[in-house]
């Protein structure tokens, strides 16, 4: 999950400034987010989406992506 694009990601901006100071040019923007890994016996996409909506993400300020892997 990451902050919505309309919101200033101040931590991301700070990291971007730092990268520039280290000489890494060409980074247009940095956005910092979180990854939450869930181990589940059975994956129910509807249930995972509900988890995101009710606790894991704050839809007021955050976007999220759900990915499934083995």
């Amino acid at each position, binding site marked *: 999950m990451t*902050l919505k694009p309309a*919101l*200033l990601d*101040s*931590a991301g*901006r*700070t990291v971007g400034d730092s990268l520039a100071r280290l000489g890494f040019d060409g980074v247009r923007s940095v956005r910092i987010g979180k990854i939450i890994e869930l181990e589940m016996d059975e994956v129910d996409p509807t249930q995972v989406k509900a988890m995101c909506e*009710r*606790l*894991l993400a*704050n839809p*007021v*300020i955050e976007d999220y992506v759900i990915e499934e892997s083995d």
Partner: protein
Amino acid sequence: MKFAVVRFPGSNCDEDALQGLRDAGHVAEYAWHENSDLSSFDAVWVPGGFSYGDYLRCGAIAARSPVMESVRAAAAAGAPVIGVCNGFQILCESGLLPGALVRNSATKFVCKDVWLRPEGVSEVWPVRAVGLIRIPIAHGEGRFVAHEEELRRLEGEGRVAFRYVDSHGERTPVSNPNGSVHDIAGIFNEGRNVLGMMPHPERATRPSLGSKDGLGLLRVLNQVQRT
């Protein structure tokens, strides 16, 4: 008025709130976050701190703890509910107040006195009666944000309780300490009985604390006759 001061693991402004409320002439007792019954209280104070270590997001876990069902019921019944600092974050996370609090625009934790201009209209919290006040802030994530439509409603309905201003009561580019949209320091819910604010009135209740402007805010409730 009889206040429940809710305590979460990680609350750290609970004692200040209890003492401040008592200094202002209220009765105040602690309520543990696992309790679910606040029916013996008239009002609720959700204090500042770092509830549940601020894990996931500030206030996110506290907002989903058992006591919040009772806070929700109290709010729905029209009881005065106030959330200060982390308490404000908790009320936003719980959906009792709109918007959210995100990292300060300057990325730093800010701890200093600020001037507040009360603007919102509420019978439960007649904040305008206290006038311009100087009380402290202490937060890293206090930048209020809300969707454009929500912001329009807050402004249009006079639900911006407090705005950051300078000592003359004017909004200036430097009077906003955290980058909050529209210089918003505190807001009311639709029913105007739930108040959330980042600055700490309970930390400004005696001259020895640098200001007693906060005491005036805690006292305005005394003027309200509840039905």
